[in-house]
């Protein structure tokens, strides 16, 4: 049994974030940490350390699927791990993120604030009780948009956790795809030198291919 580290409890951070966002939508801004930190770690040479050790969402899904036995533990369909799907989903996700930024700009330019949370990019939930007077309307609009993104991705993660393996979300997580892409750009050469001797073409484990 491996000894628990402080980083094994980061699922509490994810859970707290979701609860705080429900309590006051402005806490959605804290989610920027979950966006910028993995990218910064990958860009500055830390590889996928965020996914591997510090992802609270991954840990939460693992906890629900593994410890609470909510997952069916089935192998997810192959298309989910294919490059076209992962990068396609990343592109779609970034497009929706761009639209959210556009809405923020429109409110900044004078359009009225929409107190709505959009789930799965389609279903609009009224969020009229939100207290957003503390900040400028554009900052509140960003919070609504950003929390919509976070809730949507959490929902997708939960559904694929229930249907397949606990951390199936990690397979097509846009942040994971982006950080892996950054690592490939940074370290692709070293990786091919390291694992390039594999002749079977079916693995990255050099030792397994000898």
């Amino acid at each position: 049994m491996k000894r628990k580290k402080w980083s094994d409890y980061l699922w509490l951070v994810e859970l707290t974030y979701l609860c705080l966002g429900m309590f006051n939508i402005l806490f959605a801004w804290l989610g920027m940490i979950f966006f910028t930190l993995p990218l910064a770690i990958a860009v500055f040479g830390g590889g996928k350390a965020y996914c591997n050790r510090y992802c609270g969402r991954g840990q939460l899904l693992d906890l629900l699927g593994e410890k609470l036995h909510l997952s069916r533990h089935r192998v997810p369909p192959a298309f989910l791990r294919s490059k076209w799907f992962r990068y396609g989903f990343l592109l779609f996700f970034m497009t929706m993120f761009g639209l959210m930024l556009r809405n923020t700009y429109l409110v900044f330019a004078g359009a009225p604030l929409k107190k709505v949370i959009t789930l799965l990019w389609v279903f609009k939930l009224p969020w009229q009780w939100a207290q957003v007077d503390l900040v400028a309307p554009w900052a509140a609009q960003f919070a609504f948009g950003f929390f919509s993104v976070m809730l949507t991705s959490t929902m997708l993660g939960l559904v694929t956790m229930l249907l397949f393996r606990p951390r199936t979300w990690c397979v097509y997580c846009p942040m994971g795809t982006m950080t892996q892409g950054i690592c490939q750009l940074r370290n692709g050469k070293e990786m091919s030198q390291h694992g390039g001797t594999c002749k079977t073409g079916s693995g990255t484990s050099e030792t397994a291919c000898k």
Partner: protein
Amino acid sequence: MKLIKKMARVGRECVACGCCASVCPRDAIQILYGIAAQVDASRCVGCGRCAKTCPAGVIEMIEWSNEK
């Protein structure tokens, strides 16, 4: 002496999430350069926990020999 044992092999579509490395009881798996998982044949005992955990389903258990 010829040694045949079971060990894990990681497929090409590894997403480098690190789930396999976190469950490996022998710390035989590391995420190489943030790109893919790599199994250390000398440490792997073929327990199969990584294969059961891998969310992408790209780890398979193979028969491995130290001789060709």
